[in-house]
């Protein structure tokens, strides 16, 4: 039966050449732009998450605790209310890094990096710039590529091992100071220690905050500068599967007691914003296709009026109401299929064109350099856009089809007579 109904549907549609093309084109444009838009939005999201996952540790353990430590007096005199208690001053930092490392190494998959992070001021040629100073183990940092090797303009992390006091800084910081590779500058720590450090490495990550605000020295040098020998205050875990981060962070925190934050927790509000952005995107895409659906509804509705006599004669021949419904729903679906195929081609073409766009944005106004539009190539964008278009077309066809199927053939035949 379907081939006959399909043949009737195609015959009806082909009889309305221009309107058919307009309907197919409107669905096609909706699908095409939806795909391009989804590819851009998804690409942007993937890019952002890639940066979060690749540039940040998957779990960062700091020398803080989630809740303030209970004071000994509170433990000893639990029943009494104590006021004016002056807390013991904690000595900051993780005091037994080797033991912590051993505990974590027993079960944490992936790489582990430890650091001593402190604040400092670099001085050169009369200029002072505040920086975040990281005491690192160069082999560990190189292993996890916290700064990628291709991002080094001069030297690398291993240059810190070349003897003496060496520092690696970002190119923006070097530019601000007027310093260059090989320049010796003064570094003042938060404890007031001042040492001369030679620039043995300059990097350019493209992230402004890093390029003008970070400096890397050997862990031992940082411990001396901050007067905290054998102390670290940050352990970074790089996992083979970033999605494991929340469970690893929870287990690490319960094991060693220090605050362990997964990358998902650290960027919770950002990830929530991405969800909201996706909801907005799919709402817009849905609206575009819904509008295209109105076009289909309009055409099918007109067709059912024009073909009322055909409906009557087909019913008099023995065609049923479901046959008539199927006929006009099928016509709507044909618009949907045609529009989807056209839209897929258009969407693919738009994505190819957008992927070829190259530009350069850098400077103080952008935190991250962009040289291309981030695009995600996913079959699901095509499936979802096509599926929604088909659904929209089927509904747009069904509503007038239901009405047409109920037409009384006698009334139409009498009217025609």
């Amino acid at each position, binding site marked *: 039966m379907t081939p006959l109904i399909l043949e009737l549907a195609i*015959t009806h549609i082909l009889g309305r050449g221009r309107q058919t093309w307009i309907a197919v084109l409107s669905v096609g444009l909706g699908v095409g732009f939806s795909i391009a838009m989804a590819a851009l939005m998804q690409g942007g999201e993937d890019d952002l998450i890639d940066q979060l996952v690749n540039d940040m540790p998957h779990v960062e353990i700091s020398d803080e605790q989630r809740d303030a430590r209970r004071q000994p007096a509170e433990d000893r005199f639990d029943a009494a209310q104590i006021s004016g208690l002056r807390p013991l001053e904690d000595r900051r930092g993780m005091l037994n890094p080797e033991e912590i490392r051993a505990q974590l190494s027993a079960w944490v998959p992936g790489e582990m990096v430890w650091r001593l992070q402190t604040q400092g001021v670099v001085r050169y040629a009369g200029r002072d710039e505040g920086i975040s100073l990281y005491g690192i183990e160069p082999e560990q940092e190189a292993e996890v590529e916290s700064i990628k090797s291709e991002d080094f303009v001069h030297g690398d992390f291993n240059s810190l091992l070349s003897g003496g006091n060496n520092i690696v800084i970002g190119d923006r910081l070097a530019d601000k100071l007027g310093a260059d590779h090989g320049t010796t500058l003064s570094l003042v720590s938060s404890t007031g220690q001042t040492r001369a450090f030679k620039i043995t490495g300059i990097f350019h990550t493209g992230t402004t905050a890093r390029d003008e605000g970070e400096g890397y020295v050997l862990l031992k040098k940082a411990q001396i500068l901050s007067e905290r020998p054998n102390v670290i205050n940050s352990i970074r875990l790089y996992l083979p599967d970033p999605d494991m981060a929340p469970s690893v962070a929870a287990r690490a925190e319960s094991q060693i007691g220090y605050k362990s934050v997964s990358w998902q927790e650290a960027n919770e509000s950002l990830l929530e914003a991405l969800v909201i952005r996706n909801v907005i995107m799919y709402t817009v895409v849905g609206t575009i296709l819904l509008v295209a659906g109105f076009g289909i509804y309009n055409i099918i509705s007109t067709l059912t009026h024009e073909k009322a006599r055909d409906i009557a*004669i087909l019913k008099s*021949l023995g065609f*049923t109401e479901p046959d008539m419904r199927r006929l006009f729903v099928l016509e709507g679906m044909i618009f949907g299929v045609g529009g989807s195929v056209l839209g897929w081609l258009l969407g693919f073409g738009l994505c190819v064109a957008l992927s070829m766009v190259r530009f350069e944005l850098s400077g103080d106004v952008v935190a991250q350099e962009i040289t291309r539009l981030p695009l995600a190539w996913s079959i699901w964008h095509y499936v979802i856009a096509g599926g929604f278009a088909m659904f929209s077309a089927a509904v747009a066809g069904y509503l007038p089809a239901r009405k047409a199927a109920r037409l*009384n053939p006698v009334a139409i035949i009498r009217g025609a007579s």
Partner: protein
Amino acid sequence: MKTLVEARDLGRTLPATVPVTLVEGIDLSIGDNEFVAITGPSGSGKSSLLYLLGLLDQPSHGSLHIDGHDTATLKEPQRAALRLESIGFVFQFHFLLPEFSVRANVELPMRKLGRLSASQRRVRAEELLDSLGLADHLDKLPEQLSGGQRQRVAVARSLANDPPLLFADEPTGSLDTQSSEQVFNILDELVHQRGKTVVAVTHDIDMADRADRRVHLVDGRLTDHAESH
């Protein structure tokens, strides 16, 4: 003679603020191999009766048996199936699908019934059209035919599934004299040479007179003026 159509106290009233009675109290039996003409003045309910007998409309009351089936017990899909298999319609206007060729129009009921293969359908359509003098017009569109030719195609389409019963509503109403004569002769031949039963609504007194039987309607009711020939 086998009874093909049996109507008892058949009536149709359109629901409205003031209900409109189309036909009322119809008692009618139509036998196998019979040519019945339904006559009456305009608005007397001839076409309404035909649509009721042809299962295109539902009676408000009364009973109707078609080819042994009590139509009151049939649901719409079964009524449609009975129309497809046992009833052929010819209307005043041909009502051919304009986008389909002559042959495709005739094949349409056969395709819906689905009993014949594509080649069998093709052969049957050609035979029917040939028997109605349309062998040279198989692939033409309806708009390329004259009024009489179109009506003959409509007759061929009504016979596609070889139904025993043919209803014709003013089949010659829109034709010139010569074409009317041709169409009437075809209907007559269907009854007397091919064993069909034809029920035709007509204003044409000559045509009515040449039928086997004439039933006359006035104000929706059968009168005593019915004649047999």
